């Protein structure tokens, strides 16, 4: 008979092995090939050629809402001319943000499972060597312990940047995050807080992650007032939003869409900058329908929009020609808690139609909350029911993963149905 103890050990070992394999494979590939290796699971259609990514210096420096955090207080001459950018993917941008945080804030420490040797997704590569192992260190495989430890550290006024290796593993830490972190300020009457805590964690599907590596748990935290939940879509967004999250005086859960670590590439300003929390960003303006999403599905939405305008031959019969010139407004929510009601409502009041896209399952997902709020605030303005395109209400089965996720065709279908309601 297998004791529960050895079973748990085997489980942990398996997790470890798969994580190690990924890192080792990544390293070997990077050394042995000249070309950029394809990301695990292959490039998603749309990301490599996405027009939403800012691939020139000029475009990068014009990122809406960017706020420079120069040591010299931001000399006006540096507003545009003196800025440099570097080509980065999401994991490099995340690393860059942590490097700046460690450099400028002596109390900042980075910890989590395997982070000292770079982390399974390489977000902390070289940080231990650069800043020392007393500031960038590995923890045991104990998520609840990591969260509790980070809360204690933050309660002492430190900047604690914790990594939970996969968002799927955040559930053992759920109690600490919801009962301790979220309520620390409130239940101590403002005497203590854990505002210095930021929990980074890779989220969303990777194409073959299956049950425990492809979930999107952002919705579970939505009722935990006191926390903030942030999900970036690109390297510039990841760097700016992560720096804001680290410095925000509230505990933040920062979820990084793992498929984008390698596949989303932008020119990222190398200076210290922040992007605002609690603000959505309108990426494509429109007047006929609001398409709201965050994280990976941003790119599926972009693909769906181009399919709507120029449907491929197989889909053309299903896309009425009158709809092909429809102007769809695409919004990236970015901060899930507290979400930007104002921007979303302003848009829906103009368009009268809303389609929400997220990877997590539908029942009580983030879309449910937004839909309920929108129908209450804009009941008489709506021309069609609020539509949700989400994962199914099932676990993420390995072989079903592509079927599970809201892809461009399902998004297109929902847009067409909502426009013709």
């Amino acid at each position, binding site marked *: 008979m297998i004791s529960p103890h050895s079973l748990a050990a085997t489980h942990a070992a398996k997790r470890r092995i798969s994580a190690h394999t990924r890192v080792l494979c990544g390293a070997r590939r990077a050394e042995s090939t000249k070309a950029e290796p394809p990301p695990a699971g292959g490039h998603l259609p749309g990301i490599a050629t996405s027009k939403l990514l800012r691939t020139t210096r000029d475009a990068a420096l014009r990122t809406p809402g960017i706020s420079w955090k120069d040591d010299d207080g931001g000399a006006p001459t540096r507003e545009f001319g003196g800025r440099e950018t570097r080509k980065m993917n999401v994991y490099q941008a995340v690393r860059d943000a942590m490097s700046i945080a460690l450099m400028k804030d002596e*109390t900042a*420490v980075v910890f989590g499972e395997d982070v000292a040797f770079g982390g399974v997704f390489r977000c902390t590569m070289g940080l231990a060597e650069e800043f020392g192992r*007393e500031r960038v*260190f590995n*923890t*045991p495989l*104990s998520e*609840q*312990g990591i*969260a*509790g*430890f*980070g*809360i*204690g*550290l*933050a*309660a*002492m*006024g*430190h900047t*604690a940047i914790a990594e939970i290796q996969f968002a799927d593993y955040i559930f053992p830490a759920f*109690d*600490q995050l919801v*009962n*301790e972190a979220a309520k620390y*300020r*409130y*239940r*101590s*009457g*403002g*005497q*203590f*807080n854990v*505002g210095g805590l930021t929990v980074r964690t890779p989220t969303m599907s990777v194409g073959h992650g299956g049950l425990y590596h492809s979930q999107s748990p952002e919705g579970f935290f939505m009722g935990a*007032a*006191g926390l*903030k939940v942030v999900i970036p879509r690109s390297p510039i967004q990841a760097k700016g939003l992560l720096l804001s999250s680290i410095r*925000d*005086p*509230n505990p933040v859960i920062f979820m990084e869409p793992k498929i984008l670590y390698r596949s989303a590439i932008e020119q990222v300003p190398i200076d210290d900058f922040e992007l605002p*929390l*609690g603000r959505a960003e309108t990426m494509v303006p429109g007047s006929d329908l609001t398409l709201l999403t965050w994280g990976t599905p941003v790119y599926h939405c972009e693909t769906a929009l181009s399919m709507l305008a120029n449907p491929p031959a197989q889909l053309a019969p299903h896309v009425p020609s009158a709809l092909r010139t429809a102007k769809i407004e695409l919004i990236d929510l970015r901060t899930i808690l*507290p979400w930007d*009601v*104002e921007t979303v409502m302003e848009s829906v009041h103009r368009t009268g139609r809303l389609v929400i896209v997220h990877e997590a399952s539908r029942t009580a997902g983030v879309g449910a909350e937004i839909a309920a709020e929108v129908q209450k605030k804009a009941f008489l303005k709506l021309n069609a029911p609020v539509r949700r395109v989400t994962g199914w209400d099932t676990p993420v089965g390995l072989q079903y993963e592509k079927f599970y996720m809201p892809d461009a065709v399902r998004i297109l279908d929902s847009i067409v149905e909502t426009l013709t309601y």
Partner: protein
Amino acid sequence: MYREMNTMRRMEQAADALYKAKLIRGFCHLAIGQEAVAVGLEHSITKEDLVITAYRCHPFAVLRGGSIKGVIGELLGRQIGMSHGKGGSMHIFTHRFFGGNGIVGAQVPVGAGIAFAQKYLEKPTATFAMYGDGASNQGQVFEAFNMAKLWNLPCVFVCENNKYGMGTSAERSSSNTEYYTRGDKIPGIQANGMDIIATAQAVKYAREWVIAGKGPLLLEFVTYRYGGHSMSDPGTTYRTREEIQRMRSTQDPIRGLQRYIEEWGVATEEELKKIDKEAKATVDKAVEEAKASPEPLLEDLWTDIYYKGTEPPFMRGREREEIHHY
């Protein structure tokens, strides 16, 4: 020490009375019988050392820089309360005390984080992370032990073994009831939690141990609570009245110290009686002050959720007109 133990007991008895008078609502866990742990601990540490504990937290809150009226006020849910009436019994903090914590075992890894910060700042100070015999079976307690030993944190894990985790005796819940041995490579000591000389000496030793850089230490206090687990537990369904009576008459920490004092001729019985009376008067006065304090302002329902200025534009109440705009 005698005065403080007496005052703490009077305070808890006052809380008991206020609860029974339905002036204190919610949950209320009293530490009557366990005074020697809190008072002994406070006497052997400095103001720079840090303490975090579970929900039986009232004496620590007072001794670590709080006040009796602050604790009673918090229990009553008044503005004068140490968390402004927003926390209640389990949620009382001071500058050097990281609070009562309501989730069983959750404060232990938090204590490890606090100890790490102390080590990081290279301060010669210790953290005392306290938990009960019930919490000692929580997984995260072992996670915290492991991290603390791995990184040699100046953390003393203090197990207050009062022999019952809620209504289940230690023998029925733990395969190993020698809690001081449960730290794997962390050494542990056991002390009589009903004898304040023993608790004070044990804490002194433990503090010196961790500050000397020898890594964490487990410290088990064998103690006893006279009351139930909380106010809603009469405390007599899982143990006999005779057992409680026997502990009260033979092991009581306050009577124990009284015997020492009288044997050693430090003070007379009259002098001690005077202290008792003063303790009662102090508590009575604090209770009246706390009772006089108003209930929290409606405004404060919405404060301290997010840092001022970074909150969402509004938070919901129950109805449309109850939406609060910041």
